[in-house]
């Protein structure tokens, strides 16, 4: 029924996403890794929706909507930051420092 393989692939994709988030400094790439993790989760939802009904698929639908919103705002923020510091490198962007 492909449940086990689907979950395994999901786990691998998620871990890769984590790895990417941790080792990249480029804000956009980091953002893409977050998308990767979201996709991994989506896979889990879809795989399990075969057993729990169509709700899982709907959840994927919502995740995508959120991802779209997030991408729009997130990229806008990155653009704004870039305009300010001419860099998307997180090492040089420490505006969050308290």
């Amino acid at each position: 029924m492909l449940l086990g393989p689907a979950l395994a692939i999901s786990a691998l994709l998620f871990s890769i996403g984590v790895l990417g988030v941790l080792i990249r400094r480029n804000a956009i790439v980091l953002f893409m890794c977050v998308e990767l993790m979201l996709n991994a989760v989506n896979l889990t939802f879809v795989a399990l929706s075969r057993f729990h009904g169509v709700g899982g698929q709907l959840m994927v639908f919502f995740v995508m909507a959120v991802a779209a919103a997030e991408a729009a705002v997130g990229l806008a923020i990155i653009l704004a930051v870039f305009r300010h510091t001419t860099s998307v490198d997180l090492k040089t962007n420490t505006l969050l420092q308290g």
Partner: protein
Amino acid sequence: MYVSADLIWLAVALPLAGFLVNGALALWRPDAKAAVSVVGPAVLLGSFAVVALIFRSYALAGLATPHVVHLWTWLPAGALTVELSFLVDRLSLVMLMVVTGVGSLIHLFSVGYMRSDPGYARYFAYLNLFVVFMLVLVLGSSLPVLFIGWEGVGLCSYLLIGFWYGDKANADAGKKAFLVNRIGDFGFMVAMFLIWVALGSLNFLEVAELAPRYLAAGGTLVTMITLFLFLGCAGKSAQIPLYVWLPDAMAGPTPVSALIHAATMVTAGVYLVARTNILFAMAPLSSTVVAGIGALTALFAATIGLRQYDIKKVLAYSTVSQLGYMFLAVGTGAYVAGVFHLVTHAFFKALLFLGAGSVIHSMHHAYHATHSHEDAQDMRNMGGLRRAMPWTFVLMLIATLAIAGIPPFAGFFSKDEILAAAFARGAEIPAFRLFWLFGVVAAALTAFYMARLMAMTFFGENRTGAEERKHLHEAPAIMTVPLVVLGVLSAAGGLLNLPALFGGDAKLEHWLDPVLEGAHHYFPLEMPHGQTEFVLIGLAILIAVGGLVVGWRVTMSRPILPASQAAPEAGFWKVLYHKYYVDEFYEAAIVGPLRRLSERVLWKGVDQGIIDRGGVEGSAGLARTLGWIGTRLQTGQVGLYLTVFLVGALGIFFVVMG
């Protein structure tokens, strides 16, 4: 014509109306001096007429029972009900006569004395208000009502001492008077609380009735009550250690000194002791303290009076000294003698002050005419004034003889009675012998400084200055007429209570008997008779005459230099001149440390330091420090945040989900 005592409210209402009219004039029509000249003294004469008529009715009817005139209920609070009511009895009537009578004369005198002052209307407003409060004080039927008057006269005294408030010294003197009186008021209030706790009433008549029933004679409680009461009296009547305000109070206009600081207000303490005589009689220890303080004050103030040059200062210390006599009397249990001396003192001391006022008035005009800035009150600048001011001189001479205790002037009888009483009490309580001795010495000193005053002012060469001399002149009639009346009273005042020895019938003694019945029971006093009486009287006359002669001799033996050329004081004279440095001592030991404590320790230290900096800002600082520690974690490195976040998330996963 019989006038009911119910009308006594009129005697208070008239000056009150005068106060309102004069006060309104002072604010909006300060130049309407004619109206003020009429309203100011007229209301008081009206008041005197009311009192005199009631007095006459009382005397003719031989009424001995107190009469309470109820106005309204002031403080109803459960068991405590303080009525705003007046107590008319023989004691208050005597005081009323003095207050309104002497008050009327001084009001008349003021018309002449203050006429040219820009604050004329304000002056009369205050003076009228003072009389209102003084009458409330005398008439109050309970301690709190008396306290209204007690504080009210203090207020007027404060306002009048600082009447010329543009000079800081005057404003200071007024404030000092009020504050020192407040210390006394503290005692007064505590005494009231004690009486309330002990007897459950503050009404004089009820207290007099309940005290013998519920208080142990000579017990701690009654002693405490009377000692605290006496603290109040010491404040108001300028006794040691609270006398310091009275000499400074001479900063006010001279008629004020005569009315408030000689004849009426300062005797309120004596009146209060007489009013609560039953309590003092029940506490022999307190009575001894009262007499002791009185005797000591009489002596102490008299010594300071020896070396003052300001004519009013001499009289001020003389007043303190004479008040000491009165307390010696009431402390001895000779309440009648105390009241008697109060009355005669009101006459001759008012006369002395008004006479001094007349002199100052004249001196002031002289200096004013020549634009000189010499001190118009310094006796060293006077001399030989008897030629320029014969009326004033004669009248002041009468007063001097009266205060020195030369028969047959008024002071002789009252003072002699006090000393005799103290001597007699000495048989029972030895300390009184010492008090008697103090009194005798003080009497000698009194004669001495009065002779010095007269000699420096009226005799010898005139030292005012060649140009100024021409401007010295006698006061106008409106000022001399009251002086004449007071002169007659000072000369003949002794008749009020002429002892049997001189063929009198001790009128005042009998008049006050009903009021003092209880006191006589607890604190009986056997006056000396026969040979002892003769010896004492002889001694008193001898001392008075001796004091006068010595005073005259010492003063006239050396030429007196005007104030501007005088050499500085030296030796013990200097200590006396500086009043034993008591003011300086109070300033250094109490006032200064208290102010420094308040400013440096309490305000800057406790308030701004411990509470604000430590407590309030300390807690804010703590929060800020914790926040700062938090900010150190916020490096701004998103990577670090993510790492930490992941570690935490994984940790939670492993812990929660196994």
